[in-house]
């Protein structure tokens, strides 16, 4: 069963992110990633750029609507995601609690829809 761990940050928390290799928060992330891989549960994941770099697109009555910034106008914005293969939601919550994003911002755990595959969304559907 696959779960998405979605990491949310406030603008202040986004501002605390650095690319400095020696930054302890980044060090914690590297260690967390390593633990996920070594435990054999990691599927994929990535960090996102700050919300201001986002652009939101809609088509309404055949017309394009393009909006600067993220879709949702909320204080906490999606900062990254991880997909994990795990036996249960309990295991997913354990990993969410260990996520460095949980002690800085918040982590939402949500199962991936197994329906999507069956419906042929990914082209992997079996008749």
């Amino acid at each position, binding site marked *: 069963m696959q779960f998405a761990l979605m990491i949310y940050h406030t603008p202040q928390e986004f501002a605390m992110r650095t690319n400095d290799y020696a930054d302890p928060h980044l060090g*914690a992330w590297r260690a967390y990633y390593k*633990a996920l891989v070594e435990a054999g549960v990691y599927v994929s994941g990535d960090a996102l750029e700050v919300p201001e770099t986002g652009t939101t697109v809609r088509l309404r009555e055949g017309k394009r609507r393009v909006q600067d910034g993220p879709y949702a106008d909320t204080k906490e914005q999606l900062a990254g995601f991880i997909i994990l293969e795990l036996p249960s939601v309990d295991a997913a919550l354990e990993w969410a609690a260990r996520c*460095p994003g949980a002690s800085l911002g918040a982590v939402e755990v949500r199962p991936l829809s197994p329906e999507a595959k069956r419906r042929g969304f990914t082209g992997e559907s079996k008749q």
Partner: protein
Amino acid sequence: MNRNNSQEDTHRTIERVARESYGRLVAYLSVHTHDLASAEDALSEALVAALKNWPRDGVPQNPEGWLLTTARHSFIDVVRHQRVALASEPTLKLLQENSTNAVLSAEFPDERLKLLFVCAHPAIDPAMHTPLMLQTVLGLDATRIAHAFLVPPKTMGQRLVRAKTKIRDGGIQFEVPQERDLPRRLDGVLEAIYAAFGIGWDDMFGIDQRGRDLAEEAVWLARVLLQLMPHEAEVQGLLALMLHCEARRTARRGPDGRYVPLSEQDPKQWSLPLIEEAEHHLREAFTQGRSGRFQLEAAIQSAHAERARSGRIDWTAIALFYERLINTSPALGTRAGYAAAVAEASGPEAGLAVLESIDLDTVSHYQPYWAVRAHLLQRLGKAREASDAYDRAIGLAEDPAVREFLLQKRG
């Protein structure tokens, strides 16, 4: 005293009575009907009534008796509504007892021991033993329990309801087990109380401390159990173990919130009264002459506490306690603790050898193993391997302060 103050006092009295009497009242109300959910509903209605009436009329002379009488009235109302379904012998008995009003005195039997055994009954999912105790004996709400056990609050609520339904309808007896079953059944109760406390506090090398924020509640439950079973060595042992750990609570954090491992703690910051109380219970336990898991764990913590007196730690003794502990409960935590103790007593190679004997598949998610391993590899000067092990420990750590500590040690 002005009115506000006295109102505050009344509220505090209600809180205290609720805390002290909750389990006794729930146990008494449910012992015959086995209906925990209705007993809890009735009691919470009584508490609401107390919040309304006591500030106006003053606190009754016998607050517990008042709560019991009020709770019984609403309990009977509930039961009357369900009468068709529930017109059973025990229900009728309760109705009758009420009409004679026999229980207005403070003297009603303490049935909490039966309730504790029901919560940790083998027919109930072991994962629900602790949540049930916290709710029915201490009155904690499902959300708070859910936080502590890292479960979605709605799910925890549903699981509690299911467990109570099983207790009501599943023929689970409200009784103290017979001699023959007692040791095994008591283990279940002790395990459940210890599970509320959190994982071990053997925090020498930055082992992740996933306390459940329920340490006080766990100690309270152990005290209740000891009061009800004063001659059980393992009950004394469990209380001694938790008190030793509690004695170090403040010393585990520096003034800046930094994590301080046991070996670097200043014993002057340990609570001497708690240590003395722990030692008292451990001595009492030993006089019973029946060894057990919790006494051994308490003995290990007692050996650490010795540093406050003599400045020394007898690692050989600690390693021996662990060895005996492995024979009774070979949990991963015990084996990691044993490795750490062996390393202190006979050098890091010996400790590492103990770790090597553990199957790697079992520790891929187990933080303490990697924390101990990293520490021992570092002592052996194996920098690269140590750094790898530190990474694993850091990646599996939950407490940010522990994570920070390990990051610094990794260098």
